[in-house]
Structures are given as structure tokens and as C-alpha cells.
């Protein structure tokens, strides 16, 4: 691993969490967020990517009352407090769903599919949910 650095005696790796699923309907988005929050405690270099229906996870104005399911979307806004600030969204996925950055809860960097592939290539650990 060429990108590994040694700091305070521990390894720091680049972790990328890829979110591909809608926030509700399945539990993947919620449990993915739980992994992300835990990883913050390990002081790793963490990035999040939102592609396909995963872009819906960070859409503003989610209301889950009718479905009687917890609305965990405010948690994405709290990620900054855990020093998790690298959030990427795939342009093609947003376009296909008629979404723009203005529809999103948190500041993100928009990448093309090609740039997203480059981002994945640059990572040490990629987890896809």
C-alpha cells in the first residue's frame, strides 16, 4: 500500500463508503451511516459517495412519519462534526433523477461517473452499501 501513512503509531487508510440505495425501503442506508460514524472514531481518511438511488439519502425535506420509520437524514448534517467532510455525488445519478445540488441537505462535490471511478481507484478500502 503506497498511500499508507504512519501517524501516532497507527495506519491511516483511505476509506470510501459508497451509498447506492434509497434511504428507506431497505435498511442499507441507515446501517451504512452507522459504519461511517464508527469509522470516525478510528481517525481514518473517510469519504462518502452517493450514486444511483443513493443520492436520495441526502435529499432535503424527507418526511417519514407516514411510514412510521425513523427519519435519520439529519444525521448527514452532523457528519461535519466528526470531521467527515468529503462527500461526493455522481452527476449522472442526480441528472437521471432530476436533482441538483440545491436539493441536497449537505455540501457535496459533484463528480462525473469517470471522476467517480478515479476516486474509487485512489482508495484503500471501498465498502459498498
Amino acid at each position: 500500500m503506497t498511500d499508507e501513512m504512519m501517524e501516532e503509531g497507527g495506519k491511516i487508510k483511505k476509506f470510501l463508503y459508497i451509498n447506492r440505495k434509497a434511504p428507506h425501503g431497505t435498511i442499507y442506508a441507515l446501517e451504512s451511516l452507522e459504519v461511517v460514524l464508527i469509522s470516525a472514531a478510528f481517525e481514518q481518511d473517510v469519504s462518502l459517495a452517493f450514486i444511483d438511488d443513493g443520492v436520495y439519502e441526502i435529499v432535503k425535506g424527507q418526511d417519514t412519519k407516514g411510514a412510521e420509520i425513523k427519519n435519520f437524514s439529519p444525521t448527514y448534517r452532523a457528519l461535519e462534526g466528526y470531521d467527515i467532510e468529503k462527500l461526493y455525488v455522481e452527476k449522472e445519478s442526480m441528472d437521471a433523477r432530476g436533482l441538483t445540488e440545491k436539493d441536497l441537505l449537505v455540501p457535496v462535490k459533484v463528480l462525473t461517473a469517470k471522476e467517480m471511478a478515479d476516486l474509487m481507484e485512489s482508495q484503500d478500502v471501498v465498502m459498498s452499501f
Partner: protein
Amino acid sequence: MKLAVLVNEGPYTHQASDTAYLFTRAALEKGHEIFRVFFYHDGVNNGTRLTVPPQDDRNIVKRWTELAEKHKLDLVVCIAAAQRRGILDENEAKRQGKDANNIAPGFRISGLGQLIEAGIQADRLVTFGD
């Protein structure tokens, strides 16, 4: 190579657990080290000893247990995901006031930190899921 495996789906409904098992077994046969197998999402259901599949079918849970015994594998079930889905070991059953536990031999219940640690320590983390 030092590998870690992440299993995100339960047994039988999805093939992911089968593929993860076959991958893990093949890697061990080739002389690779498996740092840890971590079970998350419905993957925690691979760790219940109460499954009773038909006799002419593969026994997915038992297969993991036997592989763990043979190779001293570390099979870890995520505690948060397990609690949602009713997978308990003796300690957790006691702590949560439940009258039984169902963790299969060779599995242990622990936190998500074990997954992050596996990502840090292994050369490759391989995910099996949908």
C-alpha cells in the same frame, strides 16, 4: 495476502453468503490469511445455530462453523445489526433479559469497530452482498 471478508446478506435468500464462503475457503486453500469475516446487515443471520435446512441442501451456518474450527477463523457478527434481528449470545441474552441465545459455534458478537479494524489491517477487504 491478508484478506478480510464482509458478508452483507443472510443465508439462502441471497447467494452472497455462499459466494463469501466459497471465496474464503478457496483463499485459505491457496495459503492466504483470512484476518476476519465480518457479518453485517442480514448477514448476521448466518450466525444462528437454529437453522434447520433440508437434508439434501447445504447447511450454510454449519459450513461456516466447520471452516472456522478448521482454520481458527475469526467470525464476527455485528452487535447492532444482530440485536435488531434477534441474534444473541449468552452474555447479550442475559443483558437484554431474553430467555435464550442462538449464536452458532465459531461465531462471536462484537462491534462495528471490528469491521473498520479489518479494513485497516488487511491488504484487501472483500465485500459480498447485493
